[in-house]
Every structure is written in structure tokens, then in C-alpha cells.
């Protein structure tokens, strides 16, 4: 187990009697406190990547439309990555989240198109089914004591296969299910899960020539895609849970040293099961957002997203061994991933090199992140 000083554990009131302080209670300067945050490396990595693209890419990458363009894939990945980060801090992996996106997308699509359900019950039922599957993952890991890596790897294949079987069954042989967007209907619930937020504000900005417009007068950016709002909201919520609630302390404890945690009364198994359920539900949210946005789903949705989510969490400072990490770090990690994957298309590199660049940039971001963190925390 990696021995790290958890910067988030000082929930107790600051000590007032200075004489009895040992090194654990030593007051540190504000700057050092900032520097010890696990997400600092990710933020530094993001700045590094942004500088790289600012000097090599088409300037349109950093216009308002360009930034929304980067944030869209970052948001979809980020919702998964934040959940994956919480789970990793809790000491487990979930490799089935990519397949879960495809599977829950199919379930959701089937509720809408085949059963003709309204949006709200369809969303609720999809989330419940996802949570049950996540809970199953968690229980299997806990009861069998097998590594979650293996158990969820099995579900990666099972759910991917079920998506294909289910799609062919539901559509009568096709691997693509269309028309979900048309049947989902309009209304408040729809607006929470698809389209753009703040459209009025952006229309006003465009009307006053504060942001770019197309020749026909519509603004180049009609609003903030709702997935970005979900992404930011989820990052804030997860950070609050991790740093300011008892559940957050339990997560760190369960991942840091499960036995010690159990001995001090932390319900480790319940925490882990809940985290698996949360991860699966996050995958379902991404599925619902993308299905409503695209209007269709297919058997390849979410392909390899499990790896991208874990990479984003690691860039964000999570340790593969558990017990350390942050949700805000995963937030920055997902933005780095989005910036690299979209940013390369703004450069002149031949697309055959795409994956080489993607891998190299990510490795660089992680190495840089690690370097910064070791430098400031003195950790080995």
C-alpha cells in the first residue's frame, strides 16, 4: 500500500494549542496546501497540452465554438471518469462501463421506441437497471474476492454481446436503432438531457455581436451542451462528497486500507457496492445523453470508453492502488483527453499518426503530472 498523506483528511477543527502538535498536525502554508492537492498535476498537464496546441493548431481551436467542441467529448468521457475516479479511490476498477453505455443505451431506446414509454419512466427505469447491474458487479467482487479487474472484464464482454443480441432482437436484425429522438417527445425532462443550456443568453450575445455568427445570422454556438452542464455539476458534487462528507472519508478509507477501515467501523462492502452502482448509473447517464443527442444508438457505442475513463482518472491523480485521488483531477483529466483527441484534428498531422500522438500526449501528461506531484509532496 502506498503511504500517502491524505490532504483531505483534516476535517477536525484546526488545532489551537500549538505545543502538543506532532508532525501530522503541523500547520502548513496556504501555498503548500494548494501544491499538495492531487489534481494540481492534472491542471499543470492541461496547461502544458493547451500550450502545445496553441502553438501548433489552427487558431479556430480556441474560439468559443472550438472550446465547446473540445468540451463535448470531454463531458461524455468526464462523467464516466469522475465515477471511475471515485471507484478507483475506493480501491476497485470497473472495466464494464464502456459496454454499459451501449447496453443501457439499448435498454433506454427499447423503452422509448418498443414500449412507447414516456421519457421520465424510461430514464428512471434505465438508471435502476444500470444500478442493479453495477450492484451485481460489486457483490460478485465482494463475495468471490476476485479482483474487480477480472469480474468487470467479464461484464465488458457480456454486456457488449448482449447489446448486439438485444439490438438485433429489438430492430429485427439491424445493429443500429433509429428514431429514438423523434419518439422521445419534448418537454422539461427532454431539455434536461439533450440540446443546449443558456440558449437565450447566447442568442443575446450573438445579436449584440459579442460572439461569432454564421452568414445566416444564427450564432456559431447556440448554447452550452447540457452534457457539459452535467459534467461540471457531477464534478462539483463528487468533490463535495469526497471532501466534505462522511461517505467521502469512507471511500478514501475503503480504498486505502480496507482492513483497517473495517476495524474502525467503515462499512467497506456497502461503500464499494454503492460505488459500483454509481459508476454504472453514470454510464447510463452518458448513454441517455448521447442517445437523445444523436437520436439513435448502435452496438458500438461507448467502445473502449472504460480505458479512456481510467486514463483520465489516472491523469487526474488517482493511484491504481486506491486510496488516493480526486474528482476534480478526473475532471481536468477528461478535458485533457478531449483536447488531445479533438485538438489533433486542428493540426496538420496526417491522421495515420493520430493514435501515436494520442498515446504520446497522454503519456507525457501523466509523466508531467507525476513529476509535479512528487516534486511538491516529496512522495516517492
Amino acid at each position, binding site marked *: 500500500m502506498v503511504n500517502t498523506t491524505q490532504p483531505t483528511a483534516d476535517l477536525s477543527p484546526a488545532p489551537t494549542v500549538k505545543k502538543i502538535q506532532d508532525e501530522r498536525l503541523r500547520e502548513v502554508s496556504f501555498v503548500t496546501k494548494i501544491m499538495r492537492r492531487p489534481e494540481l498535476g492534472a491542471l499543470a498537464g492541461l496547461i502544458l497540452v493547451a500550450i502545445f496546441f496553441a502553438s501548433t493548431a489552427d487558431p479556430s481551436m480556441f474560439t468559443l465554438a472550438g472550446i465547446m467542441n473540445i468540451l463535448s467529448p470531454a463531458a461524455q468521457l468526464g462523467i464516466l471518469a469522475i465515477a471511475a475516479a471515485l471507484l478507483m479511490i475506493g480501491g476497485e476498477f470497473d472495466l464494464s462501463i464502456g459496454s454499459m453505455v451501449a447496453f443501457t443505451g439499448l435498454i433506454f431506446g427499447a423503452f422509448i421506441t418498443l414500449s412507447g414509454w414516456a421519457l421520465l419512466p424510461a430514464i428512471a427505469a434505465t438508471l435502476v437497471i444500470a444500478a442493479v447491474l453495477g450492484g451485481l458487479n460489486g457483490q460478485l467482487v465482494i463475495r468471490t474476492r476476485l479482483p474487480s479487474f477480472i469480474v468487470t472484464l467479464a461484464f465488458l464482454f457480456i454486456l457488449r454481446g448482449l447489446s448486439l443480441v438485444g439490438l438485433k432482437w429489438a430492430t429485427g436484425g439491424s445493429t443500429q436503432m433509429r428514431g429514438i429522438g423523434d419518439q422521445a417527445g419534448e418537454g422539461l425532462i427532454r431539455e434536461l438531457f439533450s440540446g443546449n443550456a443558456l440558449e437565450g443568453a447566447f442568442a443575446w450575445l450573438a445579436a449584440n455581436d459579442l460572439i461569432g455568427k454564421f452568414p445566416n445570422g444564427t450564432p456559431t454556438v447556440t448554447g452550452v451542451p447540457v452534457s457539459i452542464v452535467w459534467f461540471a455539476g457531477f464534478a462539483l458534487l463528487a468533490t463535495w462528497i469526497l471532501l466534505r462528507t462522511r461517505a467521502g472519508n469512507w471511500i478514501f478509507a475503503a480504498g486505502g486500507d480496507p482492513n483497517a477501515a473495517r476495524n474502525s467501523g467503515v462499512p467497506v462492502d456497502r461503500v464499494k457496492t454503492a460505488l459500483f452502482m454509481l459508476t454504472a448509473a453514470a454510464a447510463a447517464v452518458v448513454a441517455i445523453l448521447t442517445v437523445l443527442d444523436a*437520436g439513435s444508438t448502435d452496438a458500438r457505442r461507448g467502445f473502449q470508453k472504460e480505458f479512456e475513463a481510467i486514463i483520465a482518472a489516472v491523469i487526474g491523480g488517482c493511484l491504481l492502488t486506491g486510496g488516493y485521488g480526486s474528482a476534480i483531477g478526473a475532471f481536468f483529466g477528461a478535458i485533457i483527453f478531449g483536447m488531445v483527441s479533438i485538438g489533433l484534428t486542428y493540426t496538420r498531422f496526417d*491522421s495515420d499518426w493520430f493514435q501515436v500522438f494520442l498515446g504520446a500526449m497522454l503519456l507525457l501528461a501523466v509523466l508531467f503530472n507525476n513529476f509535479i506531484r512528487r516534486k511538491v509532496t516529496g512522495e516517492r
Partner: protein
Amino acid sequence: MKSIVTGLAAAAALTLASVAPVAAQQNSRIIVVSHGQANDPFWSVVKNGVSAAGQDMKVQVDYRAPETFDMVAMGQLIDAAVNQKPAGLIVSIPDASALGPSIQKAVAAGIPVISMNSGSDVSKKLGALLHVGQDEVVAGRIAGAKLKEMGGKVGLCVNQEVGNVSLDLRCKGFTEGFGGKVTVLPVSNDPADIRAKVKAAVASDASVDTILALGAGTAGEPSVAAVKEAGKTGAIRVATFDMSAGFLKSVAAGEAVFAIDQQQYLQGYLPVVFLANYAKFGLMPGGDVASGPNLITKEKAAQVVDLSAKGIR
């Protein structure tokens, strides 16, 4: 010393001269966003067509595709292309509902769009200028007519992906062009299963003289093998949609009559040429362009094998 200075000056002048047109080309940049990965043999040919057209027309071309078949990511790549305001945009449209909004955004931004490969049915509706691809019904009809001309009367259409609409269209076109009796034989995509089913079909109906398979590697090669096992090579004419090395060998050896090439090289090449001319002179063909079919018979097979090694077919 002086000569070095002159040399340097000359080199600088040359560099400037060669840089200037490049700068001018920035305005005539064309971006291709497809759903096919560059390491897929079929799509690498499309990409080669794009690069060749870029060189021939002296325009900057960029080929982009998501790392996996991912419609959400592809939509984002189209958005990224639109932000860069290219002189033209070329897209394939395998899923109109997922990609439609991004394509319409490109059209709204005043970027000329051409669709290629897939999406002929929705191309116009989304605002694309035209579509370059193979019409499946027309291709089936042409293949059917050719097989009829060869003397075919009773045909089998071997469908390895029942439910795929574009494959159904191929059988439909074949039936129309062939004129004679056509039975659709649904099979799985397992070569052993296809071979067994084709063998059973030709054994149960001795009048079958023509087989059209809907994929070369999947259904075509096992069909040739089945006919060979039934001892009817030559008596039953076998043709297929698309091409594979094994099937082309059979065509060259006279065991099969032809393969239908949709010439995807042109699906990359032609749209770039059209958009470059559109940017320069405002020229654009008046309707969709059929990149195929081209029937690869025994005479052409050797040349095609040669060119496929070079990534052109």
C-alpha cells in the same frame, strides 16, 4: 564566401517562392470526415484517393476518422472541421440521425458539403451538394443484366447479413436486372455454413445456373467452393459484390465470372476534385455521381490484383 551568400539568397528566394503558394492553398483546404479507420483496407483506399486528388488539384486535404466506429465522436469531428472553415467538407453518412445536426451546421456555416460512400438517401435532405457512391439497386441491376446476358435463367442471391437494408437492395436490383427466377438464400456469415447451404441449394434445384453473393470474402469464396464441390464449376456462374484476394484469384482462374467493384478510390478522389473546382470556379456536377459498379471479369482481374497491392482498388 560571396558564392555562399548568393547561394543562401537564392535558397531563401526559393523557399519563399515555394512557401507563397502553400500560404495561398490555406484558403482552399478540404477536410474529409469518414466513419472508416485508416487501417481498414477498404478505407485506406479511399484515403489514398483523397491524398492523390489533393496533390493533383494542389489543395490541402485532411482525412479524419474516429478511432473506432463511433457516431458520437464522428459528429464531434465534423463540428471540429466546421470550426476551421474549410473550403469544402466531405463526409460519409452511415447514421443520418446522429450526424445530421453536425452536417446541417456545416451547411449553415456556408461550407460546401459532398457526401460519399454511404448516405445517398439523406444526402440532399441534409443539404449536401451531391453524393458520390454506389447505388446498390443500380449495381445489382447491372450485375443481373450481365449475368442474364451470360445465359443465366435461374438465380440464387446469397445474403450473409439478413436485415441489412443495403444488402436487401442489392438482391432487389439483381432480381430486376436478371429477369429470370431469383431465390434469396439467407445464410449466416460463417463460411462453413454458407458452403453447406449453397451446396444444398444447388443440389435440391438442378436448374440453378447463377449465384450472386453479397460479399466477396464472406459469401463469395464459400459459394465458389460449394460449386466446385458439387462438380458444377463452369455450369454455374458465380459472381459477387465487393472484392477479396481469394475471389479475384477464382475469377482469374475462371471459377467465378466477376466481382463488382464499387471503386472507393473514386469516392475519395472525385469529391476533392469537385470541391476544388467549386472553390475556384463555382463548378459542380448537376447530380449524384455513381463511383461504381465496375464489373471485374477475367480480363481485368490481373490488373486489379496489381492495383490493389498499391492501395488503389
